[in-house]
C-alpha cells in the first residue's frame, strides 16, 4: 500500500504505489468506483497494485472475479450502464485477448450505439509490455489493437507521477480507457503529489528538449529513450528531443509536429512488433502533415514481427538504447532530398 502522506505533500512512490494511491483516492472520492479482477482483493493483485483496497473499501467495492476475462469486461459494461465507474483489472496484457470481443464490440461502441445516451466510464487496467522476464503471453504490446478500434482511449504512463494523475483522469473520464501499465517501470520511484494533477489525457510532454532529432515514445521506453539521449549527448554530441505521448488516443499530434518542424527528423520508439505498431501511424501522420519539414523519413526503432520471445531472449529482441541510437544515426545519414 502507498505510504500515507497529507494531501498536497509530494511523496516518493513506486509506480505500483502510485497506481494504488490513485485507486484509493478515486474510490474515496466517488463510491461508484469499483475495482475488480482476478486476485485483486485478498491477494491485492499479483503485482500488489490493488493491495489494501479490499480491506479498506470492503468486498463490494473491491472483489475477486472468476477466472474469465470476457466476464470481467462484459460485466463492467453492465455496471457502467447502471451508473457505476468500474475499474477492472486484466491480470496481464495477453489475457485481454479473451475479452477482445467485449472490448471491441461493446465497450468501444456502446456510446455510439446508444446515440450518446449511455456512457462507458470504464477504465481497464492492464499490467502490460515486456522486459521483466515473464512467461509466454505475459509481455504483449496490445496498444495497436485498441488504437485501431474506434471508441477507446488508450493511456500509457511512463512513470509513477503520471500514472497517478492519468489514472485519476481515466477513472473520471466518461469514455472507456485502456490503461496500459508498463510493468518494467512498476518499481521505479518518482515524487508524486496526490494533491495535484499533471497534464491531462491527450497532452504529450517533452521530457527532454533537443535539436538533433525527435524521438516519439511512450510507456516503459521513455526511460530508455532518456538514457539513450544521455549517451548520445556524451558520445556523439547529439541533442535528442524526447516526447512522451502519455496517451495514444487521443494523440497529441501538435506536440509532435511542433518538435519535428524544428528537428526535421523523427524516430518512433516502441517495443511492440513494427508492422502496424504505433510507429506506423505516427510515421504516416508526420510525413503527411510535415512533408516539407522532413530532412529524413520517419524511422521506427521497435520490436520485430515475431511472437514475443522467451524471457532469455527478450533483452536482445526488445528495442533498447542501441537500436534507438542506430536508428537516429540512420536518420542523420539522410541528406536533403
Amino acid at each position: 500500500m502507498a505510504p500515507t502522506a497529507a494531501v498536497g505533500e509530494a511523496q516518493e512512490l513506486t509506480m505500483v504505489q502510485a497506481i494504488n494511491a490513485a485507486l484509493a483516492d478515486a474510490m474515496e472520492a466517488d463510491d461508484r468506483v469499483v475495482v475488480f479482477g482476478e486476485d485483486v482483493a485478498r491477494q491485492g493483485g499479483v503485482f500488489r497494485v490493488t493491495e489494501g483496497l479490499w480491506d479498506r473499501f470492503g468486498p463490494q467495492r473491491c472483489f475477486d472475479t472468476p477466472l474469465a476475462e470476457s466476464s470481467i469486461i462484459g460485466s463492467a459494461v453492465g455496471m457502467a450502464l447502471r451508473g457505476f465507474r468500474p475499474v477492472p483489472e486484466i491480470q496481464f496484457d495477453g489475457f485481454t485477448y479473451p475479452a477482445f470481443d467485449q472490448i471491441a464490440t461493446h465497450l468501444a461502441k456502446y456510446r455510439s450505439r446508444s446515440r450518446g445516451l449511455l456512457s462507458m466510464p470504464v477504465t481497464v487496467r492492464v499490467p502490460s509490455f515486456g522486459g521483466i522476464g515473464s512467461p509466454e503471453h505475459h509481455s504483449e504490446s496490445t496498444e495497436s489493437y485498441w488504437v485501431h478500434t474506434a471508441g477507446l482511449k488508450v493511456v500509457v504512463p511512463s512513470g509513477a507521477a503520471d500514472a497517478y494523475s492519468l489514472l485519476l483522469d481515466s477513472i473520471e473520464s466518461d469514455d472507456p480507457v485502456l490503461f496500459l501499465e508498463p510493468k518494467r517501470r512498476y518499481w521505479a520511484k518518482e515524487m508524486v503529489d496526490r494533491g495535484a494533477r499533471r497534464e491531462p489525457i491527450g497532452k504529450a510532454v517533452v521530457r527532454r528538449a533537443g535539436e538533433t532529432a525527435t524521438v516519439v515514445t511512450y510507456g516503459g521506453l521513455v526511460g530508455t529513450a532518456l538514457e539513450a539521449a544521455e549517451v548520445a549527448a556524451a558520445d556523439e554530441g547529439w541533442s535528442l528531443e524526447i516526447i512522451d505521448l502519455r496517451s495514444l488516443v487521443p494523440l497529441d499530434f501538435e506536440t509532435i509536429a511542433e518538435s519535428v518542424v524544428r528537428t526535421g527528423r523523427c524516430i518512433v520508439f516502441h517495443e511492440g512488433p513494427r508492422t502496424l505498431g504505433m510507429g506506423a501511424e505516427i510515421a504516416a501522420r508526420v510525413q503527411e502533415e510535415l512533408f516539407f519539414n522532413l530532412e529524413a523519413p520517419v524511422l521506427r526503432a521497435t520490436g520485430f514481427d515475431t511472437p514475443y520471445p522467451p524471457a532469455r531472449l527478450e533483452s536482445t529482441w526488445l528495442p533498447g538504447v542501441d537500436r534507438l541510437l542506430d536508428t537516429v544515426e540512420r536518420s542523420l545519414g539522410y541528406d536533403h532530398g
Partner: protein
Amino acid sequence: MDLLVAEGLELVQLIAEDGTPHPDRAHEVAHLVDQLPALYETMVVTRELDEEFVNLQRQGQLALFPSCRGQEAAQVGCAAALRDTDWLFPQYRELGAFLHRGIDPGGIGLMWRGAWHGGLGLIERAVAPMSIPIGTQALHAVGAAMASTWLGDGGVTVAFVGDGATSEGDVHEALNLAAVRKAPCLFYVQNNQWAISTPLADQMAAPSIAHKGVGYGMPGVRVDGNDILACMAVVEQAAARARAGEGPTLIEAVTYRLGPHTTSDDPTRYRTQAEVDVWLARDPIARCRAYLGHLGTWDDSLEDEARAKAAVLRTGLRAAVFDAPDPSPLELFDHVFTEPTAELRAQRAELAAEIDRAG
C-alpha cells in the same frame, strides 16, 4: 407450488395445448389470470406488427427483420411478470417484450431500416440496445444486476438469449458469474429449436437447456414457452427469488420460431413443413384465447379491440419508418467519445467537405 425445483426438468405447463387449465393449479395463478386479456391484446399486436415489419422489409424499407412469430407468449409473458423498471437485455428477436414495455415500434423499425444501431427508444424504458453478437449481452445483464444490488433498487435484470447462444463462452461466463455473485439476474432462454439452420441437437447434447443450471448452482426450469401463464408464473417466482437475494435462475422457455431466421433466410433449406405444422398447431395466441374461453372470460370484443389497436400501431410504424429521413452521417463523429478528439473533428470536417462537393 415451487416451480423452481433445482432440477425441475419437467415442462411447467399451466394451460394445456387445447387451452384447458391445469387441473390443480388454477388457484395459484389467479392473480395472473386477470392480466391475460391485456396480454392477449399485446400478443395480437405483436403478431400484427411483426407482419408489418416483414411487409416493410419486402417493400425495401427495412434491410432485414427477424420475426418473432410463434414466440409471443414467451416474450410477453416474461415481460409481464416483471416490473417496468427491471432492466431487460435483449438479443434482437424480442418484439413482444419490447411492445409490452411500451417501446415505440418506430424505434425498432429504424434499427432494422439501418438508420441507427441497437434501436431507438429502448434505453428510456430500461431495455438495453439490441445486441447482435450472440450471447454477449448476458454479461452486461449480470453486471447490471450486480449494480442493482449495490444500488439497492430491488431490481431484477433479465438476459434474453437464444438456444444457439447457450453455446457461446460468454453465456457460460455470465451464468457462472451471476451464480457466484448471487446476482438478481434471470437468464431467459427462448429455445425456439433453431439457431439459423442449426437445430438444438447439433448445438448441445444435454437433455435440456434447463439442465445446465445444475452446473452453475442455480435452479434450471423448463417452461412451456407457448403457455403465457406458465411463463409468467415461472418468471414471477424466479424474480421474487432474485429480489430476495437468493440469486439467479436459468429459465428455458420451450417454443418455436415459426418464421425464417430473418427475412434473408429460407428455412425450407433445413427443416420440413411437417415440423412447422406441429408447432403451428401449438400457436400461443390461440392457446391463450382458448384458455380465456375455458375460463368463460373470452369476449369477441377483445379480438376486435386488439385488431383495432394493432391497426393503429401498424399505421404508426409505417409512418415512422417509410422513407424515413436518414440521420446525418456527420453525427457518427459526435458519439465516438464524450468530446470528439482533434482527429475526429478533422475527419468530420473532411467528410462534410466531401458531402458539400458532391452537392
